C-alpha cells in the first residue's frame, strides 16, 4: 500500500513539474501564438542553472557556488529568461513555423553544448553533487518526497494563479490580439515586437522554473534530460489539454504523463519480448499519434480556450 502511495506521490510530483512547464508554453503559444519549438532549452537552462548555482563544488566544471536554494532556483529561472531574451531578440521577427525551426535549433545547440562542453556543465556525465534543500532534516525517504510534492504543488498553484490573473487583464488581451492579428493590433497603437518578447521571456522563465524543480527533484541533470522528446511531450500536453486554457494545460500534463507512464508499464508487462526492446520507440509513435489525432479531430483540446467572459453582463448600462 505504502508502495502505491509512494509511487503516486512520485508520479504526481513529476506531472506537476511538467504542468508548470506546460503553463509556461501556454503563455507563449496558447495566449500569444509564439511557436516555441525549443521548450527543452529553457527547461534545461533552469535545471542546469539551479544545480550549478546551488550545488557543491565540482572538479572539472562550473559549480559549487553554494547559493541558498530559493536563490539558486531564481537564478535558474533568470538563466532561462536571459537565454529567452537573447534568442527572442534574434528570432522573434520570425513567424510561426520559422520561429519553431529556429527555436528547435536553439534547443539542439543547447543539448550539444551541454554534452560536449565538459568545463561548463560536466558534459555527458551531467551535473551531480546537489544537496536537496532540507534533506538533512527530512531524510531521503517518503517524508521528503511528500514534502517536495507539497512544495511543487504550491508552486504549480501559484503559477496558475499568476497566469490566470494575467490572462484576464489588459495584458492578456494584448497577447491574444497579437496572436490573432499582429498588424491590426499595431494599427491600434500596440507594439507587437515588445509584447512578443515579454511573453516569450516570461513563458521561458516559467519553463526554467519547471526545469529547476525537475533538477532539484532528481538532484541531477544531464544532456539526456534535454532531448527533443521532452519538447514534444510538453507540446502534446498542451495540445491535448487545450491551448489557451490554463486548466487545460494542467489537465493535459497529468493526462499525457499518465498515458506515457501507463503505456511504458503496459508495454513492458504485456507486449511480446521483441516489442519490449523498442518500448521507447513505441512510446514515441504513440505520443506522435496522439498529437496528430488531436490536431485532426479536436484541435482545440479537451478544455478549449474560453472567450474572456469577465466583462459579460457587468456594468451594462441598459
Amino acid at each position, binding site marked *: 500500500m505504502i508502495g502505491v502511495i509512494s509511487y503516486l506521490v512520485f508520479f504526481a510530483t513529476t506531472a506537476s513539474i511538467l504542468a508548470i512547464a506546460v503553463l509556461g508554453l501556454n503563455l507563449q503559444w496558447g495566449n500569444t501564438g509564439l511557436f516555441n519549438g525549443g521548450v527543452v532549452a529553457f527547461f534545461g537552462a533552469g535545471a542546469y542553472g539551479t544545480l550549478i548555482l546551488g550545488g557543491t563544488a565540482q572538479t572539472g566544471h562550473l559549480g559549487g557556488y553554494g547559493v541558498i536554494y530559493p536563490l539558486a532556483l531564481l537564478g535558474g529561472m533568470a538563466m532561462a529568461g536571459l537565454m529567452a531574451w537573447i534568442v527572442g531578440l534574434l528570432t522573434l521577427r520570425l513567424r510561426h513555423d520559422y520561429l519553431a525551426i529556429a527555436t528547435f535549433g536553439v534547443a539542439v545547440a543547447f543539448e550539444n553544448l551541454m554534452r560536449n562542453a565538459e568545463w561548463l556543465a560536466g558534459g555527458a556525465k551531467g551535473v551531480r553533487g546537489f544537496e536537496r534543500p532540507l534533506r538533512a532534516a527530512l531524510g531521503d525517504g517518503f517524508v521528503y518526497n511528500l514534502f517536495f510534492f507539497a512544495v511543487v504543488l504550491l508552486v504549480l498553484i501559484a503559477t496558475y494563479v499568476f497566469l490566470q490573473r494575467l490572462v484576464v487583464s*489588459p*495584458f492578456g488581451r*494584448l497577447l491574444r490580439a497579437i496572436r490573432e492579428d499582429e498588424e491590426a493590433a499595431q494599427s491600434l497603437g500596440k507594439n507587437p515586437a515588445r509584447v512578443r518578447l515579454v511573453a516569450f521571456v516570461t513563458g521561458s522563465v516559467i519553463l526554467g522554473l519547471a526545469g529547476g524543480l525537475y533538477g532539484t527533484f532528481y538532484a541531477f541533470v544531464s544532456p539526456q534530460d534535454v532531448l527533443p522528446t521532452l519538447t514534444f511531450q510538453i507540446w502534446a500536453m498542451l495540445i491535448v489539454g487545450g491551448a489557451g486554457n490554463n486548466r487545460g494545460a494542467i489537465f493535459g500534463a497529468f493526462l499525457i504523463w499518465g498515458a506515457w507512464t501507463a503505456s511504458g508499464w503496459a508495454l513492458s508487462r504485456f507486449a511480446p519480448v521483441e516489442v519490449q526492446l523498442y518500448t521507447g520507440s513505441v512510446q514515441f509513435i504513440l505520443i506522435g499519434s496522439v498529437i496528430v489525432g488531436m490536431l485532426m479531430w479536436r484541435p482545440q483540446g479537451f478544455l478549449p480556450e474560453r472567450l474572456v467572459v469577465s466583462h459579460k453582463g457587468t*456594468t451594462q448600462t441598459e
Partner: protein
Amino acid sequence: MADPILATDGLGLSFGTLKAVDAVSLKVRRGAMTGLIGPNGAGKSTLFNLLTGALKPDAGTVRFDGQNITGMPSDRLFALGLGRTFQIPRPFARMSVLENVMLAPKGQIGEAIAGPFLFRGRMQAQERDIRNKALEVLDFVTLDALADHPAGQISGGQMKLLELARVLMGDPKLILLDEPAAGVNPVLTETLIGKIEELNRQGTTFVIIEHDMDFVMRHCDPVIALAEGRVIFEGTSDAALTNPMLLDAYLGATTDE
C-alpha cells in the same frame, strides 16, 4: 489649403521597377470627407499603407497635424490620432467583440505585465471606464447586442463596423477607411455611412478609398483620383464628374468591371 490635417510631398514607393506610388503630393482638408478613387492597381491601397505606417516610403514626406510622420510605425500614428480600417476586415477572431474594442485605448495600466499585480486597484478602475466607453461605442455602431460574440463569427459588414468601433476608442482626429462599402450588404452600408457622417459632423476627418463611384459622389467631397501611382485629379466631386482626364482614366476602366 490652410492647415491641412494630412499632407504628402513627393511621396513614392517602388516595387522593383514598378512605381506603385509615384511622387504623390496631396493635401487632406481638416474636417472633410475626402474620397480617394482610382482604378484597380492605381496605388490607392499602397498609398494608404504609406500614410498609415504599414509601409515605409522610399521617397518624399508625410505630415500629419503639423508633424513629420514619414516612416513612423502604425502604433505611433494611432497614438497621435491617426486611425485606419482594412480593406478586408481584420478582427481579432477568437476574442469577443467587446474585447476587440477594449484593446484599443492608449495608456492602459494593465498592459504592463506588472500592472495586474502592482496597480490592481487603479487597473480595475480604468478597466471599468474602458468597458463603459467600449459599450457606448458598440452601441453607437449598433453592435451592442453582439458584445460577447466571438468577433470571427459576425458578418463581414459587422466586422467593418467593429473596426470602426475599435478605431474610435483611440479618439482619432483622422480616420482612413479602406473600401468601407465593399462586400457589405446595402442596409449595413447605410448604417456605416450614417455613422461616419455623424462622426464627420462632430469633427473627425475621414479619407475614404472607394471603388463605388456613386458612393464617392454622394458622400465624399473633395475627391482625389489616382492612376498608375500618380494623382491625376484633386478637386470637388462636382468637378470630378466632368473632368475628362478622370473620366478617361477611371470611368473608362470601370466599364469592363
